[in-house]
Each structure stands twice: as structure tokens, then as C-alpha cells.
């Protein structure tokens, strides 16, 4: 249980203890995933609905498989081809889904705060699968899980997050989660893509990628959306990759055993060179596996709300 919380909207408003309890539970889930028979009864009889207002392949599939492995009834709603296209408000859509007996509602929306608007209005547990530029908590949890699995700890590590910080909900959730667990977070990227007031979040801001990478234990690059170039945030993809991309040479600023991470999908040759993506330090594919485990853990813990804690005296 997450302190009897109903929803997971972000890492900014949960405690380090809650994060640790999700990570701990995800270890068990990962063990289950390694079995031939992955079916468990954790969510038997429960209904899980994914409501995605933005395109997604991996996050959506990850949640769907996670719920199916735990025997939940799952359904998916995409923004197009539904009442959404007919002009129904988000609140009405969410209440309708809730009224059908949904236990867990997984939401992705292009506008920051959308799940925060819905959560108090529905009985279902709401899991934020990404809201605008605000948060993507399960992505950060799987990143943190992966780091902890490889490095054995989070506290005292130096994590460099590079690229488009401004538009990144992944960066924000990672910053909240990692700093709560005692990591040092450094961000770097073009100054047009670093939002104001970052230092007040407890991170160090660098104007160049290589400075952010110095002695890092983890190098996490963020996806750059190529249409940002048209908005004048950087001059060209070519220039971006030259000054802000991470290739083998630039990666040497980090520690030799630094992990290479990316939330995907990667623009090869832009954020990372292909040799870095496919190199020995890359844990990008393991992040995907861990994503399923972490999402199983989150759904399971939220579903246990209101039940007696067997560990209590």
C-alpha cells in the first residue's frame, strides 16, 4: 500500500518511503516476469482501463501487459474514434468510464494537470501515464529501479539528464524521485530547452552537455521532438547532435561504467549515436522490461488500498 493513497499522479507528492516500497515490490514482479508462466492472480476480478489522449506504443503496451499478467480485465480507449472525438469533456469521459466499474484508470493527456483534475472526481485509482510537461511517474520509477538494480543504490550517485528538459515530464519525475532518494542530478542541454528556475528543484544546471556528464554514474538522454526545430528552439538536427548529442567521445566524460539510459523512442544519431545506444553501457532494453514490473507493482499496491496490512501488528 502507498500510505493508503488512491492515485499515483506524480513523484513530486509522494514520499521516499513510498517510492522505496514500489521499488521493493517491483523486484517480486520482475521475478514473476522471468517465469515461463507469468500469470498471477494479483488483480483478478479487477478492471483496468487505459485512457490515452496521446499516441503511445511502449507505455500503453507496458501497462496493458502488466494488467494482463496480473489477471485483470483490461480495456483501452484511444482519443480518436470515441466520444472524445464527439466533443465530450475530459471530466464526462472519465466519469463514464468510472461508472462502468473501473478499478484503475490509466491516463495519458497532452495537458499538464489533466489526471489531477480527474482523480478527485472518480472512485477508480488514477495512474498518471504522462500529463503534458508535468510528470510521468512510472517512467521515472522504472528508471530508478533500473539504476538501483545496476548500481545497488541511488544515494550518492550522480545522474546526468541531458537534452530537452523544458518539455520533458520524464525529466521532472526523475528529478523529484532521484533527489528524494539522495542522488545528485545534473541537467544539461541547449539553453532554449532548459526551463527557468531549475536550480530551485535541487539540481545543477549546465549549459553544455559534457559539463553535465563529468563523472556521472548515469547518463540519461531525453528524446528531442524533431518538430521543436520548426519552433525555433534549435537551429537544426545536425547542429543539435553536434553540440548536444552524446557519442562515444562525449560519453567518456562520464565514469567508465556509467549507465546509458533513454526513455525511448530514440532518435539514433541525434540524442545518442547508434554506437552508444547499442554499446555495452546501454541498459535501454532493460528499462523496458523493468517498466512492466514497476507498473505491475504500482497497480498492485494501489489495488490494496483499504485492505489490512499484513505487516502491521
Amino acid at each position, binding site marked *: 500500500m502507498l500510505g493508503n493513497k488512491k492515485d499515483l499522479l506524480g513523484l513530486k507528492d509522494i514520499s521516499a518511503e513510498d517510492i522505496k516500497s514500489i521499488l521493493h515490490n517491483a523486484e517480486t514482479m520482475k521475478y514473476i516476469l522471468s517465469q515461463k508462466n507469468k500469470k498471477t492472480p494479483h488483480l483478478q476480478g479487477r478492471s483496468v482501463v487505459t485512457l490515452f489522449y496521446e499516441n503511445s506504443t511502449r507505455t500503453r503496451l507496458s501497462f496493458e501487459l502488466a494488467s494482463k499478467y496480473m489477471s485483470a480485465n483490461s480495456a483501452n480507449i484511444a482519443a480518436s474514434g470515441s466520444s472524445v472525438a464527439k466533443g465530450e469533456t475530459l471530466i464526462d469521459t472519465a466519469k463514464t468510464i468510472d461508472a462502468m466499474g473501473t478499478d484503475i484508470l490509466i491516463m495519458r493527456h497532452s495537458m499538464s494537470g489533466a489526471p489531477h483534475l480527474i482523480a478527485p472526481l472518480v472512485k477508480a485509482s488514477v495512474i498518471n501515464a504522462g500529463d503534458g*510537461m508535468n510528470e510521468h511517474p512510472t517512467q521515472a520509477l522504472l528508471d530508478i529501479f533500473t539504476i538501483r538494480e545496476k548500481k545497488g543504490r541511488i544515494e550518492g550517485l550522480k545522474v546526468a539528464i541531458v537534452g530537452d528538459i523544458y518539455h520533458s515530464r520524464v525529466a521532472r519525475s526523475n528529478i523529484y524521485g532521484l533527489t528524494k532518494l539522495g542522488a545528485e542530478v545534473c541537467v544539461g542541454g541547449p539553453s532554449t530547452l532548459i*526551463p527557468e528556475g531549475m536550480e530551485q528543484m535541487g539540481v545543477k544546471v549546465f549549459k553544455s552537455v559534457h559539463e553535465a556528464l563529468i563523472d556521472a554514474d548515469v547518463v540519461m538522454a531525453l528524446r528531442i521532438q524533431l518538430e521543436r526545430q520548426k519552433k525555433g528552439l534549435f537551429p537544426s538536427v545536425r547542429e543539435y547532435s553536434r553540440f548536444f548529442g552524446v557519442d562515444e567521445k562525449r560519453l567518456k566524460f562520464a565514469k567508465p561504467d556509467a549507465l546509458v539510459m533513454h526513455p525511448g523512442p530514440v532518435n539514433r544519431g541525434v540524442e545518442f549515436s547508434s554506437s552508444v545506444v547499442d554499446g555495452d553501457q546501454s541498459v535501454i532494453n532493460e528499462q523496458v522490461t523493468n517498466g512492466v514490473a514497476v507498473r505491475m507493482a504500482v497497480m498492485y499496491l494501489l489495488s490494496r488500498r483499504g485492505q489490512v496490512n499484513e505487516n502491521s501488528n
Partner: protein
Amino acid sequence: MKILIKGGRIIDPRNNMDTVTDIYIEKGIISEIGTDLDPEGLEIEVIDARGKIVAPGLVDMHCHLREPGFEYKEDIESGTKSAAMGGFTSVACMPNTNPVIDNAAVVKYIVSKAESLGYANVYPIGAISKGLKGEELAEIGELKFAGVVGISDDGRPVSKSGLMRRALEYASMFDVTVISHCEDMDLVNDGHMNEGYMSTYLGLRGITRAAEEVMVSRDILIAEATKTGVHIAHVSTRGSVDLVRQAKKRGVRVTCETCPHYFTLTDKAVDGFNTNAKMNPPLRTDDDVEAIKEGLADGTIDAIATDHAPHHIDEKNCEFAIAANGIVGFETALSLGITYLVNEGVLSINQLIEKMSANPADILGLNKGSLMVNRPADIVIFDTDEEYTVNVSGFESKGKNSPYDGWKLKGRVQYTIVNGRIVVNQGILL
């Protein structure tokens, strides 16, 4: 109706009056101001104003009454009732209605509707450009003769500098005040709140202060170059206050207003995606609030306007990015001024009244905002010590979109008298 206001502290900044005395009103006109008045005659309504302040009816130079076109948000009746509850006897309403106030017919409709209701004097502000499109000048001469007291494309900036220059020059011929909503849309870049730590923390697109300041600066320079005047609407940043202060020192004919939310709230109020803290310009930071107070105190900021912007609940109960901008303001403005400016020592009560009555009236060229014998009796009476809790469900406005719900404020309006008629009596709308 004959009314005798007894024993109140009468504050009339324009006439340098601050004294305990009486006012006698007959046939809608202030007929006498003096001590121990004891008029003869029957059916005189006596208001015991001892311990209370009696001031010129408040003048709001910037509000949205939404009629015609958006009556589901507010109409002239609900809007002027709300104004009366807040002590406003004269309000100037912005032209972003449907149809837009860019022709004489709409002006006359609004004025006659308001006159028939009688809750407040309503003065329409016409559009600068036809249809608020920012392309061609509206028929400013015709608007003036139909009764507008100023022109503005409020809600939208006049992005073309050349058009703004022509508007200032052309309007000056007709002695029409030009009110500029300053916002460089290219810098706004689809932002939804002030740019800073809070926008980063909430993952909302930020609006840099420069978006406002660039256009404040532009309009001051155009007014200076063309030897015309300009009024800057809803100033929200330290930079804008500084620009206006420097321009006034150079002798530029620039005036400006701010709104209560810019001296009482910061962008921290947006936390939790609170759409009642979404407005344009956006709430800024502590430093800007400090600068607004300094500007009010040293006279850089001439007026306090409400920017009363009622919206339907569905337009606020939604995702932050698509929520409507603005808050209702009539029914909290005076109390916010008393609680956060007078009681904190920023302004004297006399200065507050001046910035909420005489100064805005002067900027618009209205013969309002002071207490003169033989002039229509527009009066507000309030008790600066009376504390109350704001309850939006009790607002007369159709809009309940206020960030102040539940706030404890001082200085509730007890009486509002419009053209010699009591419309609010002991805090209750008649």
C-alpha cells in the same frame, strides 16, 4: 427619494475633503454637504453613517459585462448588481462582446439596457480595431458620439505597431482614451502562466514578463513620439511599473492601472492547477507584487481596476491549458484594497479611494469620482473594520470564478447609492 447620510467620515480626495459631516440627497442630486443637517420634509431616509466611511461611488475602468453575446457568463443585470455590491457606481465595460462594441448600435444597446436597470452607470469602451482583429481602425469618431469613453482591443493586443500609432493619433482628435492590453503574442508563445520556478514545477508553459514589458515600452514610445496619450491596462510586472515611472518623469502622457490580484497573489496560487488563478496577464512573483505596491504608493500606478471577468463554471472546471482567463472582481476589490494596501500601510484610505474613483474617472474623462453639490449622488458607504469571509456562492455575479473564496477580508460595502437611489442597503442588494 430623499436621503440624509448622518455623521459619516466623508472622504473625497478630489476636493481634499476628509471630515465628519452630513450629506443630504434630494431628487437624485447631492443638495447639501455640511454638519448637523436637519432638512425639513417627510419621508427622508436617514442613514446612520457614524464610524463609517462615506466616499464617492467607486469607478471601475476595466470590466467585462459579457452582454451581448455571452449572457451565460454574465449579463448587464447580473454584472451591474455585482458592481453595486462591490460599491461601484460607474463601470466601463470592455468591447469583447459578440457582436463586438465596434459600432454605435451595440454602444446604444448597452447604455440603454443599463439605464433601464439602474444598478450602475455603464460606460462602454469601444474597439480600437474592427472586430478586435487588429487590422483596421474601428469607426472611433462614431463610437465616441455614440457614447464610448475609451477604446481598447482588451483581451488581445494591437500587435501591429503602425496600427497602434494610427489609433493613438486618430483617437486623440476625438479626445478618446486609448487603453492598451500589452502582450507580445510571439513571446507569449502559447504560455499559460508566469514563467519561472512555478511554471517549471507544474510543467506548464510560461509567459515571460518581457511579453508584457516589450509592448508597454512600445506604446510609451509611440505615445511619446506622436505626442499623444496612452493608458496601460492591468500592469503586472516590476518592469512595466519601472517603464511607466520613467516615462512619466520624461513627461509622456501615460497612465496605468493594476488589479487587486496583482497586489494580493503570486504564481504560487496556481499550484494544484488552480484555474481560478489563471488570468491574463498571469499572476507573477513576490518581487512583482512588491513593485506593484511601490508603484501604487508613489503614484506611478494611477488606478485600481477589477478586470472583472466572469466565466461559466465549465470554462474553469477543466484542464488548465484550456481554462478561460480571468476572475470576477467587483465584489472583492475594495476589501482587498483595504486589507492589503491600507491596513499594510501601502496607501492611505484616501489614496485607495482616489485610485478607485476619481483617478479612473479622470482618465476616461467622466465627470464622476467626487462628491459635489448639484451633481448626481453616487456614493459608497463602508466600514473598514468590518471583517467578513468571502463566499463566492453569495456573489451577485453569475461568475463564481474567484481565487478569494474563503478569504477573510475587511471593509465590506454597506450602502451603494446610484444617482440618488439606494441600491445596496446594509449590505443587501435591493
